[in-house]
């Protein structure tokens, strides 16, 4: 009898081993495919059960994204939905977070931090993670200047076409100050709006600043100029413009068919003379140097460490003469062109562009703070400074004289990129103050027309705001002072004259008498100096 009892035990043991095998199949082998099964809602439930971290603008106060607790339905854990208090203003950067349509922008780039699945950084987080409870995510502080972002977005919206993009950054640190793409969309309620946003012909879901690709037009001449300076062309080298530059199979003419006669290279940039840049590109610069220089400036680079998706600017096979002034197969965006302006202004050193300044734990402990780092030395400092001076010439005596500002030297370049049959795209890049720029900007208004008419005012609005915000309040904000050192007119409701019963002050600055009851040291000091 025992023999048969044993036999059945072996059978049972075999059964248990088989069960472990079945479990291993589901939990290891088929785990991922089941997790992604369309009927499986567990991942979504997990994602909405913990509050995601906040996303703040550069001031650390302006909330760009937050999780809001939803009333729990019977017995379930509370869930959270994502709120974007700034609406469309930051949509291109912050992105959206949807359980149905996935996530974009900072929401996905920093998902590990925001969702609390990153490695624990504090003891609290470690305990929380060990016990497996839903963990609040870390908070992200961006580098963006809230005021500049607003000004940039409004300026683009008020341009003639209302479509365009702008990027502003600090050339010395690489911190991005503003990154605007208009039209944008409201990331709140993305689940409902997503299908219609996809079909919108204005492409609001596209971040024009980093993902759009447009002919840069004449703003690219600064890259060609850099290549020329590297090849030995001097700003003072003289060229003669006859209004046309003949090329086998193609003739270059100036914008608006201008004829400038004898000019030097610096003036050619200031006046944005296509024919001379075509001549220089074909005759003075070795084949490949322009492409090489553009790559040093970031062309062809996806900026993989940058949290947003960057569509690399590129130069394809094409006519060198036209590529030299930003036409033909040459396409770029304000992200790339702002970096170009910044690198030239920063003695040729391009800083790694940064959008995330700090990562903080839910209780505010700084977990990670990004540091400025140099991406590469694009140009020799002397070459960069020469080019920066040439760009100052654009503002001082060239195509962008309307950008002149009292007391501040600005380096810039306009661009009017032809996109027939539509109106040209209106570009402007600039950095200021020119000798040691604190801000570099690139702005582009789609089909806006001449660079100085639409792109320039948008970029300058941001520069004006930034350079003023960095300074002490202007004296003109104070009321006019009268001869007695008092304001001529005070706001109503304030006493308009000095009170009459003020104690008479002696020449030594001391009153004639002091009230009794003051500490003895003061009394003694008063008596000694009386």
């Amino acid at each position: 009898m025992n023999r048969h009892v044993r036999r059945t035990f072996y059978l049972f043991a075999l059964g248990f081993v088989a069960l472990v095998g079945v479990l291993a199949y589901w939990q290891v082998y088929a785990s991922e495919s089941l997790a992604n099964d369309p009927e499986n809602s567990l991942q979504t439930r997990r994602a909405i059960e913990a509050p995601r971290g906040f996303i703040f603008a550069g001031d650390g106060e302006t909330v760009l994204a937050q999780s809001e607790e939803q009333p729990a339905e019977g017995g379930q854990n509370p869930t959270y939905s994502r709120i974007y208090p700034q609406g469309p203003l930051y949509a291109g950067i912050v992105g959206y977070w949807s359980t149905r349509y996935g996530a974009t922008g900072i929401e996905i780039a920093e998902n590990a931090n925001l969702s609390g699945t990153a490695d624990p950084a504090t003891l609290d987080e470690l305990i929380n993670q060990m016990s497996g409870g839903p963990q609040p995510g870390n908070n992200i502080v961006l580098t963006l200047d809230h005021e500049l972002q607003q000004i940039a977005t409004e300026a683009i919206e008020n341009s003639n076409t209302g479509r365009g993009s702008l990027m502003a950054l600090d050339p010395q640190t690489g911190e991005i100050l503003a990154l605007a793409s208009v039209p944008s969309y409201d990331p709140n309620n993305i689940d409902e709006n997503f299908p219609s946003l996809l079909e919108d012909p204005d492409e609001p879901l596209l971040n024009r600043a980093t993902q759009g690709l447009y002919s840069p037009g004449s703003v690219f001449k600064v890259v060609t100029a850099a290549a020329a300076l590297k090849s030995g062309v001097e700003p003072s080298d003289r060229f003669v413009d006859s209004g046309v530059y003949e090329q086998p199979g193609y003739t270059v003419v100036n914008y608006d068919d201008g004829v400038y006669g004898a000019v030097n290279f610096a003036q050619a940039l200031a006046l944005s003379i296509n024919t001379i840049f075509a001549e220089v590109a074909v005759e003075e610069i070795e084949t490949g140097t322009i492409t090489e220089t553009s790559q040093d400036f970031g062309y062809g680079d996806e900026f993989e460490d940058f949290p947003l998706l960057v569509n690399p600017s590129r130069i394809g096979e094409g006519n060198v003469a036209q590529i030299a002034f930003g036409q033909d197969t040459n396409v770029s965006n304000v992200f790339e062109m702002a970096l170009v302006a910044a690198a030239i202004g920063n003695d040729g050193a391009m800083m790694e562009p940064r959008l995330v300044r700090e990562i903080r734990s839910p209780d505010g402990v700084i977990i990670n703070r990004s540091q400025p780092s140099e991406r590469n030395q694009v140009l020799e400092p002397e070459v960069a400074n020469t080019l920066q001076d040439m760009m100052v010439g654009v503002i001082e005596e060239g195509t962008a004289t309307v950008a002149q500002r009292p007391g501040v030297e600005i380096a810039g370049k306009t661009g009017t990129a032809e996109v027939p049959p539509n109106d040209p795209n209106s570009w402007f890049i600039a950095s200021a103050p020119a000798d040691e720029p604190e801000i570099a900007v690139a702005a582009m208004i789609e089909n806006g027309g001449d660079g100085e008419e639409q792109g320039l005012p948008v970029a300058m609005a941001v520069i004006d705001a930034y350079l003023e915000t960095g300074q002490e309040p202007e004296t003109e904000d104070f009321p006019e002072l009268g001869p007695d050192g008092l304001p001529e007119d005070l706001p109503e409701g304030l006493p308009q004259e000095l009170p009459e019963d003020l104690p008479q002050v002696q020449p030594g600055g001391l009153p004639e008498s002091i009230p009794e009851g003051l500490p003895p040291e003061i009394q003694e000091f008063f008596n000694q100096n009386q």
Partner: protein
Amino acid sequence: MAQRATMPMILALAICTLGFATLIFVQEATSPPLIYGAYYAGTLFALYLAVRLWLPNSDVLILPLVTMLTGIGLVMIFRLTYNVPDAEGLAITQAVWIFGGSGALLFTVLLFRNYHRLFDYKYLFAFAAIFLICLTFTPLGYEVNGARLWVQVGPINFQPSEFARIALIIFFAGYLAEKRDLLAATSRTIAGIQFPNLKYFGPVALVWAASLGLLVFEKDLGSSLLFFAIPLLMLYVATGRIAYVILGSIMFAVGSTVAYFLFSHVQVRVRAWLDPWQDPDGEGFQILQSLFNIADGGLTGTGLGAGFAQTIPEVQTDFIFSAIASELGLLGATAVLLAFLVFVYRGIKISLMATDDSSKLLAYGLTTMFAIQTLVIIAGITKAIPLTGITLPFVSYGGSSIIGNFIIAGILLVISEKAGQKERGEPTYDYERGTA
């Protein structure tokens, strides 16, 4: 010796304490889990001491395993029903059932130390089993989720089949031990197949068919499977004839096919097993949610309290192992499976060491029921076989199941006590010869 015996018990209690301690962190509930934990640990440890005192030679691992399994069950039930409306009190109820089960175990141990007397009343047990199953057809019985398994007597609701199983195993153990030689002998051959004398086989077949038939009409697939398989295996062990198993398997195949075409609820189970995705929100919902949660656990699990096993309907009863696999992962689930296997091993060992046939068969029958129940429900929730509604012994929520399983543990303990006494050379009463 005493220390060696107590160590597993202390380990088992430590595992449960760890579980409750984790719940404090996770659910941010301070006192309730502690109170359950302390109360539970106290009950089980007192039970353990009492059994050590009264049955000093009994198996040392049975109670620690019961403690660990009920403890894991209680932790999971508390975790799964915490803050769930209409289910919030389930953990307390389960704790009360465990208390009741402990009482039933003590009662069994005290009353049936001379359990051989049970076999004198084996026919009574057979009638009792059939009577219990029949109760559900009386006005006392009622239906839950399409199966008529429940009986209400006064304030007490219970599932008679949980207790009928034990009664039936006692009957089979007693009867088969007495008639095993006669059943093994061939009396006649029909068409080349050898058949035992119908006179001796008759009562077995009758009781077997009666209980099975009744359960089929109750729509209780899980119990039907158990009632079918256990007598068959006991018959095999008693007679040593594999022919019974082969014959039984053929009958099972035919019976299943007939049941499939006869009963719509069998068809539903089979459809949900073959392709749950064809009706993911209806018939296939429960098994799909179970699979998703098991897969969600991965190798190491989501962590206690971090899973979503509440998405499985009735998770605290039949599907509690899905929640364990989800939150403790493959490693934790395998550990729990090993605990079940060790229980089966100890039960088989008790059967092997038992000194007489009826004790052997009784221990074997009870252990077999425990093993098949575990294998069938876990294979069911992992979609290895069609789902049959039976509880996971000791772990699932349910009063009848808990008390029934504690009684089984009690009977195994008294059988092991007898074997242990003999091994130590203490005088024992030989029931078969009637002499000391």
